[in-house]
């Protein structure tokens, strides 16, 4: 287990989100806007579909020779004066970064938005070791000040109003500010500019690692990625092993679809290609560059049921279109990665037991697979996970008993017909106006959130049998 289990059950977390009227409104506005922007971007980009196929093919081909491409990446990073570290799990990754911080005497670390460092809960560890971590993406900065966690992969603070942000800045920064995004952004700029110039350590994730050139690629809109990789003395990039791609021509393919999927932009404002430490004649750039390659459950999925999820670009498109995410938002999922892909990534990181409830937090409508730039079949793997949860007997016992009985019923036609007749009798007290809205005992956990159609007065099988008799006559 690399992430702590949430304190409250999923049902409770989802319930809280559903009762939060502001969150409901913010989610609707944000996800609808992202969906529109993404659709417009691809409508105006006819070659987009072919590029998505190509991107997926590159990911697959890279995975088939992952050892080869990673070795090439490692060799090229080292050739350009960088250091490469290998982290099996979250704790080892944290230890590596802390060691670098300690050795270089770092007191403050500026961070560019990175899901990988969220995943390993790096900030708490840095703080405990006396290094102040400063998130510099505006959304991440806001939630760090509020001591919260991101609610969306690419818009971490969509759950906050400008009024709440102004109040937060007043309380935490002692800055009186109007609840105006423009004013608030300028305050953050001034605060963070000082941090960029003072910090000893810059910490980033990596959107891509280009094997042939030993390049770490970072995509941002604000410019914080550039600051973090140019100003501090030391730069540490934490990268999941699946982020490696072979070449710069491959990179061009991914860049063409990444921003379009995330925010509807043709390209994000800044794409930074970082090739190790500062070189002779340069005014900026770190004296030391470290690349931390992160396994944390990824490698065993090369041959595992979640292999396809290793192609994820972390664009967030599947969150926006998911009818469940749109209702409950990111926090209710309870782990670092929310949304449909988040369920798979949570299972990858923490094992299938961590998603015994989350695996069902999907209507399997397939919108996520349609939106995914690399066409990951998320619903297929969610079903797979549900089966795994069932097979490992980690599902709640009433669910196992009921579905076990139901399965036996479905396998025996005579028993099924008998059950139908029996059910028709039993349902009488509960069927009202053509729906069953409430069931007793633990069956109630089904009807708490769903209606059930009653068994028909004459079932299809019965009518079919009757038709056959008539036809013979």
């Amino acid at each position: 287990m690399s992430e702590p289990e949430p304190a409250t059950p999923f049902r409770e977390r989802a319930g809280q989100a559903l009762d939060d009227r502001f969150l409901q409104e913010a989610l609707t506005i944000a996800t609808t806007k992202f969906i529109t922007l993404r659709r417009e971007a691809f409508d105006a980009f006819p070659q987009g579909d072919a590029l998505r196929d190509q991107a997926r093919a590159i990911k697959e081909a890279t995975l088939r020779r992952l050892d080869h491409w990673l070795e090439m990446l490692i060799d090229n990073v080292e050739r350009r004066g960088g250091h490469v570290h290998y982290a099996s799990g979250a704790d080892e990754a944290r230890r590596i970064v802390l060691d670098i911080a300690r050795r270089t005497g770092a007191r403050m670390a500026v961070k560019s938005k990175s899901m990988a460092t969220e995943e390993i809960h790096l900030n708490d560890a840095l703080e405990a070791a006396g290094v102040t971590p400063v998130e510099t993406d505006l959304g991440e900065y806001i939630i760090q000040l509020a001591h919260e966690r991101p609610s969306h992969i690419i818009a971490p603070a969509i759950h906050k109003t400008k009024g709440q942000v102004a109040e937060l800045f007043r309380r935490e920064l002692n800055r009186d500010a109007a609840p105006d995004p423009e004013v608030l952004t300028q305050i953050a700029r001034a605060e963070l500019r000082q941090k960029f110039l003072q910090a000893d350590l810059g910490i980033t994730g990596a959107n891509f690692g280009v094997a042939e050139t030993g390049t770490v690629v970072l995509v941002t809109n604000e410019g914080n990625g550039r600051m973090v990789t140019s100003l501090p003395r030391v730069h540490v990039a934490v990268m999941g092993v699946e982020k490696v791609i072979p070449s710069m021509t491959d990179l061009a393919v991914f860049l063409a679809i990444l921003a379009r999927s995330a925010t509807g932009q043709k390209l994000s404002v800044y794409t930074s290609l970082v090739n190790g430490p500062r070189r002779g004649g340069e005014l900026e750039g770190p004296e030391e560059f470290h690349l931390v390659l992160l396994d944390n459950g990824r490698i065993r999925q090369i041959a595992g049921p979640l292999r396809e999820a290793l192609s994820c670009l972390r664009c967030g498109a599947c969150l926006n279109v998911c009818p469940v995410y749109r209702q409950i938002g990111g926090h209710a999922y309870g782990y670092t990665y929310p949304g449909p892909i988040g369920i798979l990534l949570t299972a990858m990181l923490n094992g299938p037991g961590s998603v015994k409830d989350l695996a069902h937090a999907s209507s399997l409508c397939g919108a996520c697979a349609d939106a995914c730039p690399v066409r990951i079949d998320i619903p297929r793997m969610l079903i797979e996970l549900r089966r795994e949860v069932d097979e490992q007997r980690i599902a709640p016992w009433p669910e196992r008993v009921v579905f076990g009985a139901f399965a036996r019923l479905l396998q025996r036609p005579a028993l099924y017909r008998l059950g139908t007749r029996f059910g028709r009798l039993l349902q009488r007290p509960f069927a009202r106006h053509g729906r069953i809205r409430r069931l007793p005992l633990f069956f109630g956990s089904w009807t708490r959130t769903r209606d059930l159609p009653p068994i028909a007065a004459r079932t299809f099988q019965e009518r079919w049998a009757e038709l056959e008799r008539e036809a013979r006559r």
Partner: protein
Amino acid sequence: MTTRAEFLHRIRTEMGRAPGPAAGATAPRPAPRERLEVLRRELSERWRESLERFAVEFERVGGVLHRVGDAAEVPGVVARIAGERRARSVIAWPGATLGVDVTASLQERGLDAVAMPEAEVTPPERARLRAVAAAADVGVTGVDLAVAETGTLIVVSGAGRPRSASLLPSCHVAVFDREALVESLEQVGVALEAWHDGDDAAGRGAAINFITGPSRTADIELTLTRGVHGPREVHAVFVERGLDVRHRV
């Protein structure tokens, strides 16, 4: 601590268990530098179309395009941009990398203009120059590629090519000519491969930055706001008759 060998061994073990055929070697590609040469020749015949497309896309992402005939007109454009913003201090790439010397002319016009060094300087001097860059209002840089499809400016760092000139001041002015124009991201891929082919060119730095408009965020209530960490404004100056860049990448 996990070693490289252990880490790669784990990956190979899992790869051996994965279903499907093992992948063969990748198909050989044409030599990157030659591909880029061919591409450059083709592009040189279509630069006008590329520029028009660039103009549309660059303005769409919030950039402002200026066109001048001759490199000697560049300082005037920079001075006008600075004047309109009541800006006093300008930092600029030196003439060798920018293709035109702007600082002397800007100083004559009463601006506080500093040319960044062309070669390695001492650590204290580096710190001082960074502070100068952080306090500057306008940063003037060259452009290695201008991408028509996306309105993107691609800038390679290096000696005489400080990254901060396009990052720290709130107004960035980028100067380019037809040599920099490419049509698509795909062509950018070709150029990037060629640049990284073989040994790194002397004087080239460790960072390549794609800049597509001013720094922006929508993190507070999805309201689009400019100038979060990077510049609030990005200007591009196209020099019709070309720049005299002594050190192209």
